[in-house]
């Protein structure tokens, strides 16, 4: 754990996905998130971590508590140096009920969090930044 209150979880195998989920729960103990919101966050992390394992092989998840005035939140960055996403638009295609798009669970993760940003370059890698704020 680095000094600024960040938690870094290297993602190399499916077991690390579980570790990332456990770590986020520990990190947000102080924050005012309901049980449901915690599950939403853990689920979003699970999705993006899973993508790292499946498509990039390895990467990392970095989580930290953030502030916006009096409001606190959690920011999760999932980054890898994998193949990148060629068709970002299609990856982010949203279909409420079925799993359309590329099956990366990205539109779903976006719905689970308050802020969501995706940067990806073919051959370079992908970085997803998501934030959820206390209500």
């Amino acid at each position, binding site marked *: 754990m680095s000094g600024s209150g960040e938690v870094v979880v290297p993602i190399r195998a499916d077991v690390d996905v579980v570790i990332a989920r456990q770590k986020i729960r520990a990190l947000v103990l102080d924050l005012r998130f*309901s049980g*449901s919101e915690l599950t939403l966050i853990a689920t979003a992390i699970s999705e993006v971590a899973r993508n790292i394992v499946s498509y990039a092989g390895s990467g990392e998840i970095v989580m930290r508590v953030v502030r916006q005035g*009096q409001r606190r939140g959690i920011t999760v960055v999932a980054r890898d140096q994998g193949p990148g996403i060629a068709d970002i638009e299609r990856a982010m295609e949203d279909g*409420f*009920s079925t799993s359309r798009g590329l099956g990366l669970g990205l539109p779903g993760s976006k719905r689970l969090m308050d802020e969501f940003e995706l940067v990806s370059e073919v051959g370079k890698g992908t970085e997803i930044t998501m934030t959820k704020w206390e*209500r």
Partner: protein
Amino acid sequence: MAKQPSVGAGISEQELVQRKAFLEFRDDDLANLMSINDVARQYADSMIEDFYKHLLSFEETSAFFHDPQVLERVKRAQQQYFLRLTQGNYDLAYAENRLNIGAIHERIGLPVKAYLGMYNYYLRAVATRLVEAYRDAPKQAWTGFLSLMKLTFLDIGLAIDTYINSRERTIREQQEAIQELPTPVLPFREGMLLVPIIGLIDSQRARLLTEQLLSAVRANRAKVVVMDITGVQAVDSKVGNHLVQTVEAARLMGATVILAGVSPEIAQTMVTVGIELGRMTTVGDLQSGIERAEELLGYTVTRTRTRSQAT
């Protein structure tokens, strides 16, 4: 050495540095203020007297100082404040103390304009006295005054933010209270829940409702939920989607949701918006909803007495 911030208030070292930078409050300001400290101490008492005479001459502010004991206490506290302004060392402890003072004023209900008015009076009174005291060195009076102005604006900024935080906390508590006005989730028969929804549903309320409903399904081991929206005027696409999600989430927990009281207008909206009705059971009124639920659960309701026989 970092102190624990008081409840609700709180400022980081970094934020204090940023505020000072923005006001261009630097080391020479620190020096200027400390150099006018002696003069400040001389006029402290007369300033306080004049200051409170001014406050008490206005109905709006005198209302806060009817009690003579309170007045004495406040005067003394104010004197401490004035003296502190020129004692230097404007560190985190100083800032937190200002936040606390702001919180106290907010709690007693002193309006912001009165608070600002007080600072205004103070600055003008100080300016007059500084000019007098530094007759032979007017530049020193001026630089002293400018530094004092920077410092008081730092104080005002902190105090105003306390007011705002306090208001925001109150608003948040009220919002939570409103949300807790439950949409009741009522166990109706064994295995059945009744959820009467009234009024406007926004996304947040819909979300809360879903959470409550799902929790209740587990707690009551419900297999059927009758969600009655007779009392709901209109449903937009977002809320419609929330309803669909609620139905699907309940199904994951083994429960069937019957949406009752769907008005023709709402039905039209749902069709227009393209809400998938395939997975939802909808009926026009509450009675039909309950009957459908009873059917699913295997209840048969038989009437054994006529209306006239009922006492």
